[in-house]
């Protein structure tokens, strides 16, 4: 239960206020900053044509950004971000790639890429996109996607999940009956999930839905395995614990005790004996 939600949920919760803030900052407002400052500088700053292209790109980026965030925020709980928003994210990525790979007209500092992405300390466009990309990576969304849609394995998982959930739905009044009837479906789902876990084809959507299902199964319907073999386990354990007692007792009683033979040291120990030597010598 709760697989991965711990960390992932924290990340997404942490990002939600930022996403909302971003929503409010979106394109229409880009040009409406301090007018005096703005117009003079941008006029002086070289090529108007390039300027216009950049503005277009930037506007485009803003629109797509908006649509992605609008999709992502409602999908935060329960997490469906990969499933619901992968199209929007793909579009956003395309426009960002356009910006960053813009090679047309001129080189060096004149390119849109440099102009939009790296011209200042803040590098707002870059940062905004980078944040979203991080979220996407942490969610492992790419692992559930293939081509331009959900991968086959994800779809199969969804089917199994729906099967289990509908079984739960149909039996939800009688929990003991539910455990019996739905065990096969649930087990199938669980095993499929374990395989996916091993193959690393999980994304946050799947993890979250599986967590919820497991919580339903174990906590709400209480279908975990009961602890019912206490007696045999205790019996075997106490037998095992009994063995060393027998062993030590029998070796105490039957084994011959190891004796050490003392050896007397050979030395002139007392003053007396030394005096004897001296007496002899004198």
């Amino acid at each position, binding site marked *: 239960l709760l697989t991965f939600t711990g960390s992932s949920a924290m990340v997404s919760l942490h990002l939600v206020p930022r996403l909302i803030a971003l929503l409010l900052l979106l394109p229409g407002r880009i040009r409406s900053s301090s007018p005096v400052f703005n117009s003079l500088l941008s006029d002086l700053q070289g090529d108007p044509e390039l300027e216009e292209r950049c503005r277009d790109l930037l506007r485009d980026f803003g629109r797509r950004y908006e649509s992605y965030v609008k999709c992502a925020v409602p999908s935060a709980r329960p997490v469906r971000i990969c499933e619901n928003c992968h199209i929007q994210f793909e579009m956003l990525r395309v426009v960002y790639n356009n910006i960053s790979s813009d090679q047309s007209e001129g080189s060096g500092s004149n390119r849109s890429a440099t102009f939009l992405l790296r011209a200042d300390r803040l590098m707002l466009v870059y940062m905004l996109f980078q944040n979203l990309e991080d979220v996407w990576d942490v969610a492992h969304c790419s692992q559930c996607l293939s081509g331009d849609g959900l991968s086959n394995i994800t779809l199969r998982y969804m089917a199994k999940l729906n099967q289990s959930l509908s079984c739960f739905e149909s039996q939800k009044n009688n929990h003991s009956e539910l455990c019996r009837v739905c065990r096969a479906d649930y087990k199938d789902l669980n095993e499929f999930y374990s395989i996916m876990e091993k193959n690393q084809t999980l994304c946050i959507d799947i993890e979250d839905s599986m967590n919820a299902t497991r919580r339903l199964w174990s906590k709400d319907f209480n279908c975990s395995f009961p602890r019912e073999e206490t007696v045999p386990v205790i019996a*075997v354990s106490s037998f095992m614990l009994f*063995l060393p007692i027998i062993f030590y007792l029998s070796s105490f009683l039957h084994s011959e005790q190891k004796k050490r033979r003392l*050896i007397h040291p050979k*030395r*002139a120990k007392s003053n*007396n*004996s030394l005096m004897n030597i001296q007496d002899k010598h004198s």
Partner: protein
Amino acid sequence: MANITKKVSWSSRGDEPAPAGEGTPLLNGAGGAARSYSRQVTAGDVDSTGSQPFFFIFFPLEIPHNEKLLSLKYESLDYDNSENQLFLEEERRMSYMGFRCLEISRWVVCALIGILTGLIACFIDIVVENLAGLKYKVIKENIEKFTEAGGLSISLILWAFLNSVIVMMGAIIVAFFEPIAAGSGIPQIKCYLNGVKIPRVVRLKTLVVKVCGVICSVAGGLAVGKEGPMIHSGAVVAAGVSQGRSTSLKKDFKIFEYFRRDTEKRDFVSAGAAAGVSAAFGAPVGGVLFSLEEGASFWNQMLTWRIFFASMISTFTLNFFLSIYHNKTGELSNPGLINFGRFDSDVSSPAFLHLQGMCGLLGALFNVLNYWLTIFRIRYIHRPCLQVMEAMLVAAVTATVSFAMIYFSDDCQPLGEDQAENYPLQLFCADGEYNSMATAFFNTPERSVRSLFHNPPGSYNPPTLGVFTLTYFFLACWTYGLTVSAGVFIPSLLIGAAWGRLFGIMLAHITPYGSIWADPGKYALIGAAAQLGGIVRMTLSLTVILVEATGNVTYGFPIMLVLMTAKIVGDYFVEGLYDIHIKLQSVPFLHWEAPATSHALTAREVMSSPVTCFNRVEKVGTIVDVLSNTSTNHNGFPVVTRVMDDDEPGKICGLILRSQLIVLLKHKVFVERTRSRLNQRKLQLKDFRDAYPRFPPIQSIHVSQDERECMMDLTEFMNPTPYTVTQETSLPRVFKLFRALGLRHLVVVDSENRVVGLVTRKDLARYHLGKHGLEELQLAQT
């Protein structure tokens, strides 16, 4: 023989009180019944072996084994250099370049020691990991199967069976092939560095048995670690590499021949022990300090830098090869066998100090229990098959207890993406959760330690930790001293980490500002240090080892405080575990200083007397007779001007060792032969080195009847300037001389330089400060 061994009648001190300090009686081995007896004239190391009908009649005393004995089977190392004429000659012949090459080859040997020790550590680590992994995988699958289908008691039996079988293999090789490889090996290495030659301790066979044994015992799930044996392994590697040959394999590489003597070998062994520590804990400085602390008796300051070199090489080698094994070449993140992981340096909590009250007590309790258990084992469980059975039983019970703990635990924790549970067991927990008792028990001890240090707060419930501490404490205590090769470091760390973490959790509960003290992992670290310090009682080296293992100097202060307290509190009750085991093995171990109240004892009372001496030019028959006399297995013989026929001792002019005499006899260096055959090759120091370290026994040397009448000139071969003291020298003075110079024999002379006695290690080691003042240990055959 008659002209050498004489019977001298001594009057005993009889009714006179003993002159020992503070009026405390010296326990004189045999007791009152044997006060008056005639003595055999003896000398040298009191190394009697074989039957001794003479003493048997007077002392039929057989007592159960206890700690107050000194065994006769241990001899001293010949650390002191014999500056005889051969040595001087060789020194003259050696060019300046020769000395430079020697110095360089010392460094080469140290590098080799480091590399080989690192490789062995790497090998042990990988094999244990795989073997344990396989075992846990099998059991885990089995448990999963039976959780569903019913019949978990079968899993229990499977677990116990697997454990017993693996441990049985380890115990069999140790018990039947090389009993000296049992235990952690640290006591033995400590003795070796102290200057005691423990038989077979640095043989290749011991190394092989040690390595295989430790793999079996760790993979067999005993409550043991692989760190202690690493130190022993390093020492064996050092002893082997520095000799450039293997006597066991009968292979001589003809290199490093100069190092074939005890002095050089012991220096390299200290380097090897340091390399072992360094590979075990990733603590090169700690390794050097370990060698310094344990072997500081006669320390060569020049050696320190070389030892440090060996340590560094060893940890680097281990690190490098493990990184290759883990497919992360170059990412050196496994400096030691045990990896504490990284701790952040926020040591703000003053509550560490609270822990200190407990730390020594638990360690002392551990030692006392283990002491009684070891005595019982020595007395009753001395047959190899019994020892193997005991080890198997412990393994089975360990598995059973672990299983029962896991089975009855209700502590379920959610699985995390980043947590390091390698074998999470679900059992009766909800899906997606694991049994948190299983992280502690269903795992190799190293991993359990790491999860106790680093799992986020809330990973363990207090009751789980409490039960775990208690069980593991008794299991570890029971396990140490079994006939398997295994160390006590990791179990101690684990016990300490468990109660340290428990303490941390409690503290966070009862204090209002729990958030400051929120990280129970740090308490686990401090608890681990305290427990380990309470058990082994090492000070400086242990602090540095732990600081290096955590990789954070900031923890130095709390760890030091905790270790200090643990030592003070623990020493109040009982000695350190290693010292207990050294005592129980009856090793003549010289501590740092002589017992405090021993100044009243003089060399005259300490020495062995009278002494078997040889003349400068001695008859071969006499020498052969003395050497082959089984009742007086002496090793050093003072050479005197002339042995009188009466009891008058002669003037000392040198000291010759048994090993030298044997080589002389083997090469038949007799005066008559040199005269008759002028072209005979002159004996060189090399001939003595070639026979080292296993000098043939005297029985294997054939001396014909004619040769017995020849004479042997010892002048060239004896050490012409042995250390001597006068009879009035006090015991502490003798002790200091002995310990600082690493002597083996110290001749006691009278005012006219006549030999009256000989002090050896056993004469000094037998005095110790007991509860009732100065006590004397008895000599016994073991």
